[in-house]
C-alpha cells in the first residue's frame, strides 16, 4: 500500500490560510517541523486527521492541508477518540495546550491516555493562557504575575508528563518548539507507536510568558539545563557532556555527578522503566536539567485494537433486524 503514496513535500501539507499566530510564537516552529515530518511518515495524506480544542495552539489544524477539526475547549481527546473509533485506518493527531489539555480538558486527557487510544497527542506547553490574554495556566510556576493573578499565582503547577505517566501512558516524550531535529525525531517515533503517544512540547509565548523556557532553549546555557535522554545511553548533560545523573539507591533520589570517575554509577536510560521515567520527568532546574526525549515507552494493546477484536467477534455472524424484532416471546393474532 505504501508504494502507492505519491512523494509529498512540506508544501503539500501547507494550506492557503494566513497563519495568525503572534510574531515570534513558538507555534510557527512546531508547525514547520510537523509539515516537514509529514511526508517522511510515508502515510496517505487523506488519512491524516488533526483534531484540536481551543487556544492558540488549537488553530493548528487550519494550517495543515489534511483533514482537520478545530473543536471546543478541552474536548479534542474525546472527539479524536470518536474519529478513531469510527475509522481506525485514520492517523489521528490531537493538538492541544497546557490550558486546553490540562485545565478544562484534564479529565479527557487522563482517560484518553489510560485507555491507550491510538492517537498522537501533542501538547504545546507555554505555561500560560495566550488566547484569553495572559492568565496563569495549570502549568504556570507558582507566583506567576498575570491579569488574573496580580499578586502572583498561588496554585502549584502540574507536570504534564507526570500526569501522563500516572494515567498509564504508554509513550511519553518531551521536546522543544525550536529544536526542529529533536522534535521531528520524537514526532516520528510517536507516529509509529501503537496506542496513545503523548508528547509535551515546551513552547515559548513571546507575548505573555516570554523566556519561561530560556534556560532549556538558549543555546549558550541550555546544555547545563537540559538532558537529552536516549534509550540505552548514560544520562549526561553539560557542554561537554561532563555531568551525569545517578540514582542514590538509599534515598531513591537522583543526583548530579561529574562523569569523570563515576562512569559506572551513571543512570542508563531505560525507556521501559516506569519508576525511572517518573524520576526523569520530575527533574527541573535549578538543581537538575530538564529531561527531553522519549521518557517512557511500553508495548500494550491499544484501545482501538481491543475494540476491533470485540467488533470482529460480534460480527462473525451479521445481525438480522428481522430476527431481532422476532426474538423472545411473540404471538400471532388471526
Amino acid at each position, binding site marked *: 500500500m505504501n508504494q502507492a503514496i505519491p512523494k509529498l513535500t512540506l508544501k503539500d501539507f501547507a494550506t492557503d*490560510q494566513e497563519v495568525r499566530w503572534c510574531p515570534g510564537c513558538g507555534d510557527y516552529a512546531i508547525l514547520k517541523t510537523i509539515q516537514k515530518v509529514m511526508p517522511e511518515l510515508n502515510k496517505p495524506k487523506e488519512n491524516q486527521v488533526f483534531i484540536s480544542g481551543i487556544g492558540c495552539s488549537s488553530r493548528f489544524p487550519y494550517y495543515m492541508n489534511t483533514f482537520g477539526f*478545530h*473543536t*471546543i475547549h478541552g*474536548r479534542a481527546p474525546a472527539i479524536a477518540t*470518536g474519529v478513531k*473509533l469510527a*475509522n481506525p485506518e485514520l492517523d489521528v493527531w490531537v493538538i492541544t495546550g497546557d490550558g486546553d489539555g490540562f485545565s478544562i480538558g484534564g479529565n479527557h486527557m487522563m482517560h484518553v491516555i489510560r485507555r491507550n487510544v491510538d492517537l498522537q497527542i501533542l501538547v504545546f506547553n507555554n505555561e500560560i493562557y495566550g488566547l484569553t490574554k495572559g492568565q496563569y495556566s495549570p502549568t504556570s510556576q507558582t507566583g506567576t504575575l498575570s491579569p488574573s493573578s496580580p499578586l502572583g499565582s498561588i496554585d502549584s503547577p502540574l507536570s504534564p508528563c507526570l500526569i501522563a505517566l500516572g494515567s498509564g501512558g504508554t509513550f511519553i516524550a518531551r521536546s522543544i518548539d525550536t529544536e526542529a531535529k529533536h522534535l521531528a525525531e520524537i514526532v516520528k517515533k510517536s507516529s509509529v507507536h501503537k496506542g496513545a503517544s503523548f508528547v509535551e512540547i515546551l513552547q515559548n509565548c513571546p507575548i505573555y510568558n516570554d523566556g519561561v523556557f530560556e534556560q532549556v532553549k538558549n543555546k549558550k546555557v541550555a546544555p547545563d539545563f537540559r538532558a537529552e535522554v536516549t534509550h540505552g545511553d548514560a544520562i549526561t548533560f553539560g557542554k561537554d557532556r561532563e555531568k551525569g545523573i545517578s540514582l542514590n539507591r538509599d534515598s531513591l533520589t537522583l543526583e548530579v555527578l561529574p562523569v569523570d570517575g563515576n562512569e559506572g554509577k551513571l543512570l542508563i536510560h531505560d525507556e521501559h522503566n516506569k519508576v525511572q521515567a517518573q524520576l526523569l520527568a520530575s527533574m527541573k532546574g535549578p538543581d537538575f536539567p530538564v529531561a527531553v526525549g522519549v521518557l517512557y515507552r511500553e508495548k500494550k494493546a491499544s484501545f482501538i485494537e481491543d475494540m476491533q477484536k470485540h467488533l470482529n467477534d460480534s460480527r462473525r455472524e451479521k*445481525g438480522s*433486524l428481522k430476527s431481532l424484532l422476532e426474538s423472545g416471546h411473540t404471538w400471532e393474532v388471526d
Partner: protein
Amino acid sequence: MQTETKQIEVPQVEEKEVRGIVVRFAGDSGDGMQLTGTNFTQATALHGNDLSTFPDFPAEIRAPIGATFGVSAFQICFGAEDVTTAGDDVDVLVAMNPAALTTNLHMILEGGLLIVDSGAFTDKNLAKAKYESNPLEDGSLNGYRLLSINIHKQVLEAVAPFGLSHKEALRSKNMWTLGLVMWLFDRDRSATITGLRSKFVKNPVVAEANIAALNAGHAYGETAELPVGIHVYKVPKAEVEPGYYRNITGTQALAWGLLAGSEQAEIDLLFASYPITPASGLLHELASRKDFRVNTFQAEDEIAAVCAAIGASFAGSLGITSSAGPGIALKAEGIALAAATELPLVIVNTQRGGPSTGLPTKTEQSDFNMALFGRHGDTPIPVIAASTSADCFWMAIEAVRLATKYMTPVMLLSDGYLANASEPWKIPQVDSLASFKVEYFDDPKEFRPSIRNEKTKARVWAKPGTPGMEHRIGGIERSFETGDISYDPENHQKMTELRKLKVENISSDIPLQEVSYGCDSGKLAVLGWGSTFGAIHQAVKRAVSDGLEVSHIQVQYLSPMPRNLGELLSNFEAILIPEMNTGQFIRMVRSEFLLDAESLTKVSGQPFKISEIVDAIKRKYKDLEKRA
C-alpha cells in the same frame, strides 16, 4: 383453563368477566417485583389481552429491608379494549410487606382485592413502616377484600425438597405470589417456566425451586378455602389487528429503531454515552448488539460522550449520544458544535424529574424548553418526541433520517415512563421500511466543505480517508462560500439565517399533523406530546363516548412543528394541553400560533391518570358551554 369446583364446599368459587383490570405488585427492592411483573405481563400478552405496564421503582439499589423508601412496584393494566396506560386505580394490589402496603394502599379502589404476605407483617417490619398496630388485624383494611396468606410459610414448604438455605428458599416468594395471581386471572404458566429454566440454566436446582413455588401458588388458589368474593376473573381477549406481536419497552424500541435507522441509512453508528438513570438501558441494549452496525463507547463523562459521537460523525459514521436532563445540559456545548459544523448527531434525552438530580427514577416532560432552547447562540435543531413505548422505534428511525439528510443534530425526547413501560407491538415488516441511504461527497473537482444541497440546504459530508477531500472545519464561524474561518459581519448574518432556515425547512419533509382520536374540528382539542399519549387517548375516548365534542391531537414533531398544526388547532373552540411540567409546550403553541390554550400540568413524577384528564376536559367543556 376452568377452575375446578369440586375441591371446596365453602364459598363456591365463582368466575367473573371484566373488560379491564389493573394489578399492582409491590414489595421490597429485593423481592423481585419487577421480575414478577414482567412475567405476568408476558403471560397476559400471550393470553391475548391488550396491556400497558408501569414499572415504578426507587432510586435506592438495595434499601434496608422493610423500608418504605425501598418499595418497588410494577403495575399492569390489561383488558379486552385498547389499553394505553397502566391504569388509574388499582383493582388488585399485592403487598409483600407492611412498607409496600402503606405506600401503595391509597392507589387501590375501595372494595379492591388486597393480597398480602402475612409472614412479612412482623413487629419489626410493622415498625419500619410506622404501623402502630397490625393492619391485618385491627380492622383498618375492612374496606377491601383482604386475602392474607403467610406466603413465607407456604414457600418454605413448597421448596423444602430442594434443600436450599432458608434465605435462598424465601427468594421464591415472588414466584409463589405470581402463581397465585396467575390463577386469579387464568394465565398460562408455561412461558414463565421456560423463562425460569433458561434464566437459571447454570443452577437448575434454583430453577426447579422457583417453578415449584410458582406451581404451589397456583395450586393454593385452586384448592384453598378462599374468603367470599375471591374468584377467578375472566378477561376476554382484546380485538386487535391480525399479525405477529411481541411486548416491547421504550428502551428496546428506541435501540432497535436506531439499528433499523442505521440499516436504512446504510451507515455505521457510534453510540457514545455515560451511565445515567433512566437512560442507561439504551447503552446496555446496544452494547450487546454489536453484530449490527453499531459500536458503543462508555465515555468518561457526558461531555466526552457527545464529543466522541461528534468525532464519529466527522469521520463518516453517525454519532449518537444519550442521557437524561442533567447529562443533556452538560452536552449543550457539544451539540452547538455539531450544529455549527453541520455534522449529523442524534441526542436521545430520556427525561426524568428535575431540576438537578431531581427524581432520577420518576418521569417528567420538563426538558422541552432545554431541548428547544437550551443552547448558546442562535442554534436551532430539530426536536422530535415519541408518544408511546413502541413509537420510540419509529421516532428513532426518524431521528437517524433527519440527522443524516439535513446534516444536523436531532434531539429525540423520551422519558422514564416510556423507557420502562412495555406494550404489545405488532412487529413491522423489516423489508417495508423506507430506505434513506447516506451519500458522501467524493469528487475532488471544486470541492469545498461549504457546498450545499440546494433543496435541503445540507452541507456536503466528505469523510476523512477520501483522497482529495482534505478540509478543515471548526467552531469558528465559517464562510458561506468557502467554509474557511470568517469573521465577516454579513457572512455571520447569512450563516445564522441559513442554519435557521435549514431546520425550518424540515417542516415540509415531515408528515402533516393528524387527529389521533375524534373529529378534525369541534369544541375542544386535547393537545399532547410525548408519553401523555396513553392517558389523553383514554380520556378523550371516554369524553367522546359521553357525547362530548372532543378530539385528541398528539404532536411528535416539536421543532419544527407540522406545517398544518396551526390551522388544525384553529378548527377548535378551545385547546387543552396536558403536560408533565409546569407548562412548557403550551408557551410554544401560544407564541407560534397566537392561540389561546389552557394548561393542565402535573409534576409529581407519576404519569397522568386518565381521570385527571377527563376531569379537566369536563371542566373546560362546561366553561365553553357556559360561554355559549
